[in-house]
């Protein structure tokens, strides 16, 4: 007989809700998403959970499991033997139903970042070492766990003053591209609000793709902002160098 595990899953919508307990027989290699599928199949066919690839590639199944921010498809239930597994939707975004949240704000902000402005027309050849840096950022699967954990968005609801780590990575990807000619510094310092980030690194901690968001993305961007706004001497040297 397989051992039963207990999941306490948030059921509700934007009007509110509460956790409901379900018993699920544990299988070898089972992840939390499997357990939720079992619940859908046997106990609650109306349980809403967003998922797609079940391979940590699509970034759809972000949730909060026992207070930790994770992908449902990457979290094994045998990590919680003897415990109740509490599954809740992402705190930062409005709940649509059960574990499904409305993350459209992220896409709205992404559309506001000025696109790639190449110095020459495609097709072009790039050296691998020139794009290694930005390829790390392109590993992003847009699970928005970094946006969810960012305390500026999560605790202070400052979406009007800071666009969050995912957007900073988008800025970094463009700003560090060897052929990009765009200048996004004013936007980055102004509406995108990079100054709101106090580099406490939670975004890096939760990233399921292992992207070093803070050290390789946000801090280099802060330094680029400092180049323009806090270092007149450096600016003069760069102008003379050009």
């Amino acid at each position: 007989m397989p051992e039963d595990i207990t999941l306490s899953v948030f059921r509700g919508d934007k009007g509110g809700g509460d956790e409901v307990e379900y018993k699920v027989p544990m299988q070898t290699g089972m992840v939390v998403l499997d357990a939720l599928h079992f619940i859908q199949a046997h106990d609650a066919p109306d349980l809403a959970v967003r998922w797609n690839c079940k391979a940590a590639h699509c970034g759809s199944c972000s949730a909060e499991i026992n207070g930790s921010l994770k992908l449902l498809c990457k979290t094994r239930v045998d990590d919680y033997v003897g415990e109740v597994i509490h599954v809740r939707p992402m705190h930062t975004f409005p709940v649509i139903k059960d574990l499904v949240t409305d993350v459209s704000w992220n896409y709205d902000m992404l559309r506001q970042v000025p696109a790639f402005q190449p110095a020459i027309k495609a097709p072009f050849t790039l050296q691998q070492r020139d794009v290694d840096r930005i390829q790390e950022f392109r590993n992003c699967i847009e699970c928005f766990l970094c946006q969810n954990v960012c305390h500026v968005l999560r605790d202070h609801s400052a979406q009007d003053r800071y666009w969050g780590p995912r957007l900073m990575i988008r800025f970094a990807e463009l700003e560090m591209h060897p052929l990009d000619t765009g200048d996004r510094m004013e936007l980055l310092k102004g509406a995108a609000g990079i100054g709101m980030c106090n580099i406490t690194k939670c975004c890096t901690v939760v990233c399921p793709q292992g992207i070093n968001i803070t050290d390789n993305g946000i801090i280099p961007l802060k330094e680029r902002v400092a180049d323009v706004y806090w270092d007149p001497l450096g600016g003069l040297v760069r102008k003379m160098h050009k």
Partner: protein
Amino acid sequence: MAQTAESLQPAKRKSHSLPYWVEPTFTVLALGLFGLYTLWLVFFQSSGQFHNYLSPFFSPTESWGIKVLPAIWVLWSPLLFRATCYYYRKEIYRGFLHDPMSCAVPEKRKHYFGETRFPFSWTNLHRWFWYVAVIVLVFLWIDAVQAFIFNGHFGVGLGSLIMLANVILLSAYTFSCHAFRHLIGGGSQKFTCADGRPTTRYKLWNRISAWNENHGTYAWISMFFVWFTDVYIRLLMHGVIHDVRFF
């Protein structure tokens, strides 16, 4: 798209990790005690020299006619360098300001402006404090060399080795800095010469990036070692212990 090695591992069991308040508590205790010790040096100690050993808190001794307490003359730049350091900022925001105390731990403070307003906006001046910290580091290297010269002859004492280790650790901390990583090459968009070879800036940036991964470790170890070096020299000054001379 390549999968990261981390994501191929089974999820780590979080309940085995330390409680979330341990790291911020350690930060408050360590930085708080270091701060109190520094204040004691500034206001109650006028010297840190024992023969050819000079405490890092009192180097350089030359003040070029500027009238100020000896320790203040030296300490303002390394302290500001550390206070604006990206690593220490994380620790300070988590430990002292609870902004946040740990990931996904709710914050009590309602008003938050990040680093957009004074005094935190001045953390953008980090590179300027780095420049000054490098000057201080030059003096500390001179002191470390002098720690091997006893009455005009080369020698090695335990204090010489401590001072050498101290300046090596401080150099590791200073040159693994995020601002330096940016200045040395991170600000460039291209890392390849016209002939396809890597630029010098790329090579330097690559090296500093590797050091930068351990910046936090260097930050703590170098801070504790500065402290230890001063305590060692102070104990020698007061005759509590005697220096071990190897030759």
